């Protein structure tokens, strides 16, 4: 199993989520992070003084999938997150040794994304 970690712009998330869902990957997590990279900081002013903010808000997506699904997820992210401008972010792939679904205690590849039809609530 692989964990795909991507640091993206916020506005890219909705299309990524929607397309992954459609392709059968409903499960993922996101978190707010701030990143520093090749984007320069932002200078703000307040009552005549200045304040430089060196990090920018980014979104981190975490999605664990079976080895063979990795490239689908990576490509979906690339498709929507790319604007061609500095600050688009990065994708990293990390190996995952085990995965457990808490609700059932089941382990293994099956718990990652696939659902028995009956399981999907209305």
């Amino acid at each position, binding site marked *: 199993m692989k964990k795909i970690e991507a640091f993206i712009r916020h506005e890219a998330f909705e299309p990524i989520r929607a397309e992954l869902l459609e392709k059968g990957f409903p499960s993922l997590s996101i978190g707010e992070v701030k990143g520093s990279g090749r*984007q320069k900081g932002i200078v703000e002013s307040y009552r005549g003084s200045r304040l430089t903010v060196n990090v920018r808000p980014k979104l981190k997506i975490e999605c664990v999938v079976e080895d063979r699904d990795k490239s689908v997820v990576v490509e979906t992210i690339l498709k929507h997150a790319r604007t061609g401008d500095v600050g688009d972010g990065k994708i990293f792939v990390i190996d995952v040794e085990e995965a457990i679904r808490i609700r059932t205690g089941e382990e293994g590849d099956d718990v990652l994304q696939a659902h028995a039809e009956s399981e999907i609530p209305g």
Partner: protein
Amino acid sequence: MKKRVGLGAAMALAALLIMPGSALAQGQAAAVDVIKGELDITWVMVACVLVLFMQAGFLFLEIGFSRQKNVGAGVAKVLVNLGVVTLAWWAVGFGISSLTGNKLFGTEGFFFHHGQEIGGVAVGGSETALMLFGMLFCAVSLAIVWGTTLERIKFAAYAIYAAVFGAIIYPLIAHGVYGGGLLADVGGRPVMDFAGSSVVHLTGAVGAFAALLLLGPRLGKYAPDGRPRAIPGHSMPLVGLGVMILWVGWYGFNAGSTFGTSGNLMAEVALNTQLAAAAGVLGASAVSYMKTKSVDVGMAGNGAIAGLVAITAPSGYVEFWAAPIIGLVGGVIVVYGVYAIDRYLDDPVGALSAHGLAGIWGTLAVGLFGSERLILDGAAPGVWYGIFGDASLGATIGQLAVQAVGVAATFTVVFGLSYATFFAIKRTIGLRVSEDEEQAGLDISSHGMYGLPEAFIPPEEYPGADHRIPTPAGSPARAPAVAADRLSEA
């Protein structure tokens, strides 16, 4: 400049005194009488505005002491309650409270309208002002009720109780004390409650008590071992806003209860109010500091309110020196009260202490400090004057007892009617939201949307919200879309 203006006018008028007079003078007298009436009503109208503003004070006290997930509900509540109580008072409540009818309730003034005869007087502008003033007092009393019920009561319960309260419960008490009812003559002495420590504040607190008994504490308030846990309200600044608005509004509440400007008594009432509020803050802050080595912000605010509640009954009856004492004791009571009550009852804003205990104390304080110069006809001065002055000690103790009777009667009537009302609500539509709704918060569960949406909805889901790189003001140029990234990096 300053003083001179007033003196100049006075001198001009004094000069007139040496001129001779006539029948014209009689027409004049009527005109003067009319103006005096208008002046009195002008002051009452100013007071109405201030008392109405107190609704915002109660609103922010409640919102400040709520968690973020329940802050919008408070807004809807205060608006709907004010709506219901306004109409209930107009249609029914004022009539029941009015200075007509029997010892138990008034019988004239329903569906209040111009020209209507109430107690033999046709309704005009000045009667309207007094009716409005009474309405807004009733609304204050109702607002107090909700303090104990935060974060878990059903929305519909508000509206129903508000109707009963505005039409029946509060009017009965107001009639009892102010409308020539039973409490205006307890064995020959009147219960003295200048602006309503008991009539308004204790009444509200007792309604709150009845509600709380049937409602129970918030989820998580008591640890499994029964110890109370802190559930901090989300914003002390908003609590502070509420307290300051209430303090300002109280000038109308107390000093407006002179119903006019005669003798400029309203200024004396206002100074008493200010002194007691000040002492209330200091009393509560000192006790809170002694107990925890820090000044609890909410307690300082509760102290102000307790001082104000305590002085409400005595504000028109006591000398200035008594006001800081009354306020200070109120401030001390409120802290101990909150600590003690918190062990058993979940009262998020401290209404039982600040309005209930301080309201009782204030009503009794009239019996301790009431000044011969100021008290009602038929009443005896305070026990203080019985001991240190030349009033009959027995008479003063008698008056104190009458004050206690006022408290007890108010408690009994309000508790009985309120408990019955809330019980009926509980048995029919239910009093409390479900556990899930409480956990999720009343905003989303009763009102469909968070009161502070951006605290709960993730930015990437917020329509039109994204974290595009800001182009701060003063940047050289504005470019479309993502290219702005580059600009702001310059």
